[in-house]
């Protein structure tokens, strides 16, 4: 293998380049990234960066010295438009073409848009640095209410940050209990209570009917949100946090199978041994069927396995997810590991939800399968390790 193309220059793409070098690949590495920026960290975009307490520079995942050491070619601000299955070449939006013996797909995802909000200023999603910068600027130049649509992790974090910035915030969530799919209804309710603790209104079980606006053409700006139950929520700024869509359209016609992500085996290898997928875009074969994770640790850890298999030309190692992710809202730290969704029982094993300091264990047929901690990193660390040892996740 002489040339490897890495498509996607964010966390998973950068880690893939680092792993290629760490695992001894000394050929050409070409990285293609649609964003103009060097790889940066997304988690602070809804937290410290949005709050104005960290600079864009501090988000960088690699400094110049690290990047130089990797000796890769960076094609930034350029999109990969297609992958030719016969020649394994990647066609770029600037007309160039990169022919490679190995392809690493790390194209992640984009924020799911709210239908009907196109071209309406004051409406934001938070996926990229540019998104977060635009939201921050809009918050600086307005004073009215903020409505956050979607009470998932990103919605909850953005609501918390806007609250910290002194804004009056309402969250609208179509489901009955926020985060219930991931944490179950009991813990979902407990985590959602953080909003009311801080005077942030949470409206659940009600969908968004439409956005109201004023002006026309490029001056059209949001003024509020109409809910399905007839309520009107006035807003200067609306943030849409309703999930993400994996970036796979560019693979159309490549022969690489795509279904809500890039389908790959347990070692992140697609049907072509020379094409692997990593990070948010990879839908790999887990023990219970194909799964895709949208967490930092996954994007950080998958590349080691994918690169090993790519260089070996076959799957010699399977990926074992730790299922670890964290969130930070209202100064509260939440940490999750394992597979809480598989549980038939959840028990608080330390502290108390009322104090907002506790650890809960998720069990299936009496055996631990997941752990959730609020403001209790130390015990969380221990249980997370026990979990890993017990079920080899």
């Amino acid at each position: 293998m002489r040339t490897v193309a890495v498509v996607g220059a964010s966390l998973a793409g950068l880690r893939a380049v680092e792993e290629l070098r760490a695992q001894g690949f000394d050929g050409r590495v070409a990285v293609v990234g649609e964003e103009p920026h060097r790889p940066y960290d997304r988690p602070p975009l809804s937290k410290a960066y949005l709050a104005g307490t960290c600079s864009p520079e501090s988000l960088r995942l690699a400094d110049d010295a690290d990047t130089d050491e990797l000796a890769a070619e960076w094609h930034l601000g350029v999109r990969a438009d297609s992958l030719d299955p016969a020649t394994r070449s990647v066609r770029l939006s600037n007309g160039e073409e990169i022919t490679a013996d190995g392809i690493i797909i790390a194209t992640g995802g984009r924020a799911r848009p709210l239908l009907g909000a196109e071209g309406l200023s004051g409406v934001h999603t938070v996926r990229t640095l540019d998104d977060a910068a635009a939201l921050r600027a809009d918050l600086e130049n307005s004073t009215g209410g903020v409505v956050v649509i979607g009470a998932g992790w990103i919605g909850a974090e953005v609501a918390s940050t806007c609250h910290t910035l002194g804004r009056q915030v309402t969250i609208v969530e179509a489901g009955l209990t926020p985060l219930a799919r991931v944490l179950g209804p009991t813990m979902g309710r407990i985590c959602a209570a953080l909003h009311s603790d801080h005077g942030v209104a949470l409206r659940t079980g009600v969908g968004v009917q439409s956005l109201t606006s004023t002006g026309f053409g490029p001056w059209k700006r949001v003024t509020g949100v109409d809910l399905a139950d007839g309520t009107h929520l006035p807003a200067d700024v609306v943030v849409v946090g309703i999930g993400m869509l994996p970036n796979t359209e560019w693979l159309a016609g490549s022969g690489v199978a795509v279904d809500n992500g890039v389908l790959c085996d347990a070692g992140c290898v697609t049907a072509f041994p020379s094409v692997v997928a990593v990070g948010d875009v990879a839908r790999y074969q887990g023990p219970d069927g194909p799964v895709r994770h949208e967490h930092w640790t996954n994007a950080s850890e998958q590349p080691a396995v994918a690169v090993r298999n790519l260089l070996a030309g076959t799957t010699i190692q399977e990926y074992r997810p730790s299922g670890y992710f964290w969130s930070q809202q209202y100064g509260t730290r939440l940490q999750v590991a394992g597979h809480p969704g598989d549980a038939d029982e959840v028990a608080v094993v330390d502290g108390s939800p009322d104090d907002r300091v506790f650890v809960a264990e998720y069990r299936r047929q009496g055996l631990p399968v997941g752990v959730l901690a609020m403001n209790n990193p130390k015990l969380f660390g221990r249980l997370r390790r026990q979990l890993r040892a017990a079920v080899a996740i």
Partner: protein
Amino acid sequence: MIPACAVADLSEGEAIRIPGEVPIAVFNVGGEIYAIDDTCSHQDASLSEGWLEGCFVECPLHAASFDLRTGMPTGAPAKKPVRTHRVVIKDGVIHVVPQNQEAVV
């Protein structure tokens, strides 16, 4: 010199945090006492709540590992070291000499 706690109160494998403008974490590794900055150089987690493995502490948030002897991270996501501080044991009490004050003590 800041008193941390009695030697007897910090069992092996345990850590305590000395609050302050720059909080410091004190660890007992097999009877050997180490002190480093408590705040991870990556973001803002408290290293005294981390996982201790030999002479290394793993950050509880994103798992960067730091060598307690040198303060150096062993890899991503931390890039910068944390400061190490000198430890003095006097009359059965662990004291820490914060590195930036070393000169004036």
